[in-house]
């Protein structure tokens, strides 16, 4: 019944994320960060802003190796509020037993979409002495999920009931990185049903990426992060792998009277430029989703808002 109520006032098309991946819809996914603590109100509030706008919400998994609430609990809380969830799952904190175990737990709680990744190294986070696991890698985790969907765990024991689970993966969108492109191909060979990319700023470069991967029949959802200042753009260029903000964009940010406004405007423009190339956008703002509805409206994706 929750579903019906949601559809009644939602400009997103009805259906599950899986159905939408196969449809002609242009999709919006967005990132929700679990709390550092036990209070879910901020995460739920952020999700509420996106109700009717996002087709699914990614719940991050100790992102940047910073310890936060388990995405399992946050996913469940979001599901209870009627949101569709993509639970992220990294290989950093769990061995193959724990990964499979958490997948079973997630499914039983209602999670139907999982997005896998290696995960940032523990030395980069707030517990730098933690032992990183990396028992299996993201390609192998896709293999594990494929086997689980076929009804078997990694040791070949029968397990039942992961019907309809949709599994995706992430990628950088830099066509100049041949090893990254090779790995992306492996992910798709191992069953990734959608790809969410690192933030895209250079539409031209993204177009080349999409051309190079044109033979891969997998929906690509392009990541975007609205800039807040020229300083942030420079910081990302120097510190966030796979992100390249072009110099002319940094210049625009520098000259802007209100850099946050300019950041939204630039991001909307990027979305407009790449919209025809990909299946959707994945919005990952620094901070809250307060301005995401406006961003999507300017980009012409969710016109009613």
């Amino acid at each position, binding site marked *: 019944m929750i579903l019906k109520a949601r559809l009644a006032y939602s400009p997103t098309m009805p259906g599950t994320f899986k159905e939408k991946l196969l449809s002609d819809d242009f999709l919006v996914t967005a990132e929700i960060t679990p709390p550092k603590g036990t209070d879910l109100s901020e995460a739920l509030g952020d999700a509420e802003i996106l109700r009717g706008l996002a087709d699914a919400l990614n719940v991050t998994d100790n992102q940047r190796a910073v310890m936060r609430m388990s995405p399992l609990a946050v996913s469940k809380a979001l599901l209870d509020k009627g949101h569709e969830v993509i639970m992220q799952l990294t*290989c*950093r904190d769990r061995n*193959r037993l724990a990964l499979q175990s958490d997948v079973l737990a997630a499914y039983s709680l209602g999670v139907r979409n999982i997005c896998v*990744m*290696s*995960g*940032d*190294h523990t*030395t*980069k986070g707030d517990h730098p002495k933690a032992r*990183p696991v*990396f*028992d*299996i*890698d*993201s*390609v*192998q985790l896709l*293999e*594990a999920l494929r086997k689980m969907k076929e009804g078997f765990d*990694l040791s070949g024991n029968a397990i039942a009931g992961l019907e309809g689970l949709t599994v995706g993966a*992430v*990628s*950088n969108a830099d066509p100049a990185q*041949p*090893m*990254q492109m*090779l*790995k992306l*191909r*492996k992910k798709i*060979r*191992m069953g990734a049903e959608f790809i969410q990319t*690192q933030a895209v700023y250079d539409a031209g470069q993204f177009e080349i990426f999409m051309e190079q991967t044109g033979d891969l029949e997998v929906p690509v959802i392009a990541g975007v992060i609205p800039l807040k200042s020229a300083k942030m753009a420079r910081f990302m260029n120097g*510190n966030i*792998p*796979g992100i390249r903000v072009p110099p002319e964009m940094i210049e625009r940010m520098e000259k802007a009277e209100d850099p946050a406004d300019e950041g939204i405007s630039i991001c909307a423009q990027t979305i407009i430029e790449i919209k025809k190339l990909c299946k959707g956008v994945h919005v990952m703002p620094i901070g809250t989703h307060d301005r995401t509805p406006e961003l999507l409206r300017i980009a012409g994706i969710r016109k009613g808002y």
Partner: protein
Amino acid sequence: MIISSAKPFEEIMELLKDEDDIFIIGCNACAAKIQVGGEPEVIMMQQRLEEQGKRVAGYLVPSAACSVASFDSLIEKNPVIKEAKTILVMACGSGVSTVSRVADMPVYPSNNTDSLGGRSHGEVLPELCAMCGNCTIYYFGGICPKGQCPKQLLNGPCGGSMEGKCEVDPQKDCVWGLIYRRLEKIGRLNLLERVWECEESR
């Protein structure tokens, strides 16, 4: 070879604070080659310990500290060891371990054991092999990702590399870049297309 590095001298002094009549055992294999357990380092250690007021009974640099038949074989090489009350081994952990098995007295390490590596053109090359017991290094152009990638990935790089450098240590090249260039150079880029399944990770 086993790559080890010398512990800070203060740490060694702390280890030996209640010990005296020390016998030093070096190692003429790996530790000598990387200058943390050859005769010059052993003599230097003896001097420094004596400067700190320790009595050093003597020393011995066997061909390999990790290959010692018995305590008698050590006595044969330097009988002074009989008068010692403690042993300081300037080798890797295997050397310390092997000497401990044959000597009925406290045995201390002077080094930290870091990895299985090599040396070429005078440069010490750490972490060349993870000793996983299932060698597949050929597929990676002779550059082992289990040894050199901090995430031990087998199917390609993580997304954390910046400008070709490793996410964990920006001073180091991402090993996947090195593997790619090496395989390109020897005309075997096709090897990278192999998917390594879970079964092969251990």
